[in-house]
Every structure is written in C-alpha cells, then in structure tokens.
C-alpha cells in the first residue's frame, strides 16, 4: 500500500509529455500513473481510490476501473494497472517462496511419485498425505496428455503482453476453446483484450491441434 501511495504522489518527474506517454508505453504503469496524476489535479483524489478498490476487490472488478479511466484519459492506463491487482488477488494468500503450477505440471509430478510408490510402499514408514490421490485424480481430470513443457511454450508469447504466470496457469487449467471464454473466466485480462486477442487465438488454436493429435495418438494405441 505504501508503495502505491508513493506512486500516486510522485508525479513531478513525469511532467508534461503526460497524456500520450501512457498510451504509447502500454505496460509501464509507473510512468503512466505519474504523468496522469500530474496533468489532471482534479482526478488525483479519484485515481488512488480506484487503485485501492482494485487491490482489494476480486478479479471481476477490474473492468469497472478500466471504464472509469478511459473517461479520464487514454485507454492504456487500465491495462497497466489491472495485472498487478489480479496478481495480488490470486497470489495474495500464498507465501513468497511459492509458484503456481498448471494442472498438467502437477499431474506429471504426482504421477511420477505415484509410480515410485510401487517400490517405496514396501517400506511402511514412507507415508503420503491423504490428499495425494484426490490431488492426482483432479490434476488428471481432463485426460490431457500434453507435456507441460509444450503447453508452456504455447502460452509463452502471452507473457510479452503482460500476462502473468498465474494467469497463464489459470487459462491452461480452464482449458478454454475460444478467446471469449478466456476473457469471461479470467476477467482480469479484459483490459488487455485488444492486444491479447490475437496471441490468445493463436495459442488456443495450437493447443487444440495438440490435443487433437494426442487424442488420435491415444486412440491408435
């Protein structure tokens, strides 16, 4: 929170190139904010408020903030703010040494351990948590045989457009078929809709081709 406040009131740097820079900078949120606040004093009190809302509100509210700011000025600013709030909402409850995994990654790890358990279970001292089996069956629920490395490669280009690791995991886990489905289920991506549509479509098409190929391979075996 202190940092946010800081950003809000640092403006003097950004100065006057102001209004256009957030539009051209896209994801560079710091500059965008500074410039905006400086140039429009009357909005100064409003913008931090919307910041606060986003920080605490669930992902679904990102869109609202976006609309408000469009009125204030250029369209890119919400794009810059929304990801940070999403990231907070999703990963907020997790300790710092933690990373989110895709279901297929988890399935690979858990399956590997279950395979080893055939040997290890001969030792009665070696125990697995009660949640292990349910965790494994949930990770494998889609019957998705795609290698996590391949799925990661497919979604890799989205990172250039400011999509975070946890958002990529969300998209992958949902297993969407259309771009609209992605934006409906991960509303935090809505502010970036215009820039993300293309890369997302490509990624989903590639994923669909991969799944089809794997399904056919499975049938032939």
């Amino acid at each position, binding site marked *: 929170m202190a940092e946010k406040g800081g950003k809000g009131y640092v403006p003097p740097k950004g100065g006057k190139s102001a209004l256009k820079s957030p539009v051209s900078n896209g994801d560079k949120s710091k500059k965008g904010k500074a410039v905006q606040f400086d140039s429009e004093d009357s909005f100064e009190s409003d913008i931090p408020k919307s910041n606060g809302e986003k920080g605490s509100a669930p992902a679904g509210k990102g869109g609202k903030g976006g609309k408000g700011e469009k009125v204030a000025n250029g369209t890119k600013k919400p794009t810059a703010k929304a990801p940070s709030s999403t990231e907070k909402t999703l990963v907020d409850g997790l300790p710092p040494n933690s990373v989110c995994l895709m279901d297929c990654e988890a399935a690979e790890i858990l399956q590997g351990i279950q395979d080893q358990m055939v040997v290890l279970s001969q030792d009665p001292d070696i125990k697995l948590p*009660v949640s292990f089996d349910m965790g494994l069956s949930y990770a494998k629920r889609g019957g998705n045989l795609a290698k996590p490395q391949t799925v990661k490669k497919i979604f890799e280009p989205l990172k250039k457009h400011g999509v975070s690791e946890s958002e990529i995991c969300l998209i992958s*886990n949902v297993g969407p078929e259309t771009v609209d489905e992605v934006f409906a289920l991960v509303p935090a991506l809505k502010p970036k809709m215009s820039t993300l549509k293309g890369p997302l479509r490509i990624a989903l098409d590639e994923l669909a081709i991969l799944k089809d190929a794997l399904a056919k391979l499975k049938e032939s075996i």
Partner: protein
Amino acid sequence: MYVKSKMTWNVVLPAENLDIKGLMLQKAIITRLMSEFAAKKASKDLGYFLTVTTVGSIGEGKVRQESGGVLFPVDFSCLTFKMLVGEVLEGVVYTIINKGVFLRCGPARNVFLSHTMMKDYRFVPGENPYFTSPKSSKIEKGVTVRFVVLGQKFVEAEKDFQALVSINGDYLGPIS
C-alpha cells in the same frame, strides 16, 4: 490451483533411528519428514499438502537434551493444492439440499454452491433432488460443475477448507 513451495522444517529424529551409516541417516530423516508432512495435512497459507517433491539441504543436527533425539533443519520443496479466490475450478456434486449443493474439488470436500449463487436454477425435491434451469441444464449428483471461488475459510481443528463458490457468469455451470 497447484502450488509449488520451498520450505524449511525442523525434523527431530529419535535416538533409536540414528545410524552411523550416512545414507541410512539421510533416509531416516527423509522418511520422518514425509511422515510429518503427511500428518500435517493442510495449512491456511499453502492449502492441502500433496507431496514432498525434492529434498534440498539437510543442516547440521543438534542434540536435544531431554529426549536424546537429534534435530535437523531440512530444506525441501513440496506440492500443495489451494483454492484461490477468483479462480475457476471444477467440482463433482455429491450432496444436494434445497439451499444449494456440495461439491468435491480435488482434495477439498466442503465446497458449497448456494442456490443464491446459481441464478435461474430452481430446486426440484424428490428421492434424487436436483436443480434445473429453463435452459434445461441440470445439476444433480455426480455432475461436474465449473465454478468460480468466492471465498474460503480454513478450519484449523479439521485441517480442512470450506469454500463458497458461484456459477453466476458466462461459461460457468454444469459441464456435459
């Protein structure tokens, strides 16, 4: 969502488990770590504990005066499952009441979808009660439902989570 975390725990090895052969000692430490990990079941921050994936370094042991056991600090990675607020997940319906349905989502058993969080659905009582919508989609026992997590609570005594979920929104609801 599945979460991979790095942790450091202190593992106390009872004196009788100590062995002069290094490898056996290492095995005893890892076995003890796994059994303590399994016993912990879940935590508020990390969710449900699934497995220890890798063991990093095992620190120098310190003898405990009272018991004679030796305490080793162990760095390890583990895999857990936690439902995050705003996340879209899938669950299987196992109980239906007029106020809503209970779902199982991976290791989580107490996932509640209230009837207020499924717009347009109405409860149909009977031997096999179900919820139905005008679009003729049905939520009954055994059906898989895609939902969004609204909130959750960790019950320390039961080492379990209770979650409230919703299907109000596009692309949410029963999956055929």
